[in-house]
């Protein structure tokens, strides 16, 4: 485009004014090109990054998992915590331990493995201690984000863990409130 501009310019004189006018036009054109680019790109960019309510999901403070007796000692199960997958484990003493089921490695959903007696991720073989959520084997770099599990009148409730408890897992907890 610049070349056509140049060729259209009358080459009648080689005075300094001529050159500066060319330069002026170049700068103005460049400015408008940038402006035009920004004006076109911005709406497309905003359009593509718009987050609708549909994806935001519901904010959940706690969920009930029903009767505590339904979960046998030494087993675990996956459940839905708001719009995130979560996992609960009942240890041999009968206590409950709940975590986000999002693997801290690459975001797969973990599960309780009876055979390994810990929490295991099928994608890349990461393992976590079922009682503490600590990463114990494989590629995961961090423990699972903890959730609070409590038994009230024989019913299991899982709620968000206080933020202070999970400072070392801030990346994961960040995803939990969603």
């Amino acid at each position, binding site marked *: 485009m610049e070349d056509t501009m140049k060729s259209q310019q009358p080459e009648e004189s080689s005075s300094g004014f001529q050159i500066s006018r060319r330069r002026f036009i170049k700068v103005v054109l460049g400015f408008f090109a940038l402006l035009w680019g920004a004006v076109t790109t911005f709406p497309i960019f905003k359009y593509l990054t718009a987050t609708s309510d549909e*994806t935001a999901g519901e904010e959940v403070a706690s969920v009930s998992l029903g009767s505590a007796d339904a979960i046998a000692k030494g087993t675990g199960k996956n459940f839905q915590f708001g719009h995130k*997958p979560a996992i609960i484990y009942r240890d041999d003493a009968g206590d409950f331990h709940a975590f986000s089921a999002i693997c801290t490695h690459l975001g797969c959903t973990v599960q309780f493995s009876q055979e390994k007696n810990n929490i295991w*991720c099928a994608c890349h073989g990461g393992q976590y201690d079922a009682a503490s959520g600590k990463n114990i084997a494989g590629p995961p770099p961090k423990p699972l984000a903890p959730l609070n599990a409590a038994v009230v009148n024989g019913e299991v409730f899982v709620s968000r863990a206080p933020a202070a408890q999970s400072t070392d897992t801030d990346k994961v907890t960040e995803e939990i409130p969603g």
Partner: protein
Amino acid sequence: MSTVTQKAYQWLDARLSISAWQAMAEKKTVPHHEFSVWYYMGGIALVLLMVQVATGGLLMVYYIPEIASAHASILKINTQIDFGWFIRSLHSWGANLMILGLFFHLFSTYFMKAYRAPREITWLTGLGLLVLCFAFGFTGYLLPWDEMAFFATKVGIDITSKTPIIGEYMATLFRGGPEVSQVTLSRFFVIHVFVLPASLLGLLGIHLLLVQLHGMSEPKVFRERPKEQQSVEKFFPTFVLKDLMIWMLVLNVLAAAATLAPWGLGPEADPFAPAPAGIKPEWYFLAMFQILKMIPAYVGPIEGEHVGMLLFGLVGALFAAIPFLDRHGEGKNHHLISEAAKWFGIVVLAGFIIFTIWGMLE
């Protein structure tokens, strides 16, 4: 030729210069030597691409890019629509065979050192096309919305998010939010059927134009032969007919594969279920998958998957840079660089094969 066809030919010839094109094609020659077989790899990928375009268009007639219906619509194509299973199998098998063909094309070009001047841009557009094909594979994999696809996408996007600075942003852009959801499916669909085909068309145009412009690259053993021993064959009709014969063969292999081993469909994705045991990506991502699995959580102070990404990025960057590093007899170290380039290729290829097989066996 009857007078009617003769007249039609003359009419068209006057407007399209057919005879001039034909004369050009007949004048064009292709080197004929012991490595000539590798010249057909690009053509194989091309014919499989045409199959992808045709079958992809047909699949779009019944496929519904909506999470409640996507899986059911593929199931319907597979079980209820006449020849639906065949069209879908051709598409899935074709995609995999095309990537296989591209690997053969890539490595044969690499080891024949066809990337050297003046073919640097041909090489780079070829690498770009391979990346586009990986993107085709990755986005297309999600569309049936089965559980393997769901977790493969989750992991794939999470890997993207590990890219420094822009990673998290790009991941959100692909996902369209914090989760793999309807928005993700819609985006992947648009990328798969519009963005990638449009990009591919442009890049492939340049690639093919450059191949015609430069002609076939001659390997060193051929170039060093005395002139009278450098045998060549006519591009038209000899090479073209051989090409067509190979295409027929490839199409037959594809049809046989699609018929004898129709492509299946896993259970529908459940975003809250754990990842299924034995989950694996498509074979061409398996080597990377296996390496990611083996890297420990931390290598020194760096997170394991960052090390993996760095490794893959480095290999990719070296492949892109190779035409500028390994040039025709320039500089005093060129023999050394040429050898190094060859061994780098051998190591990458061997690593790719070993880790892929390892991943399959696990």
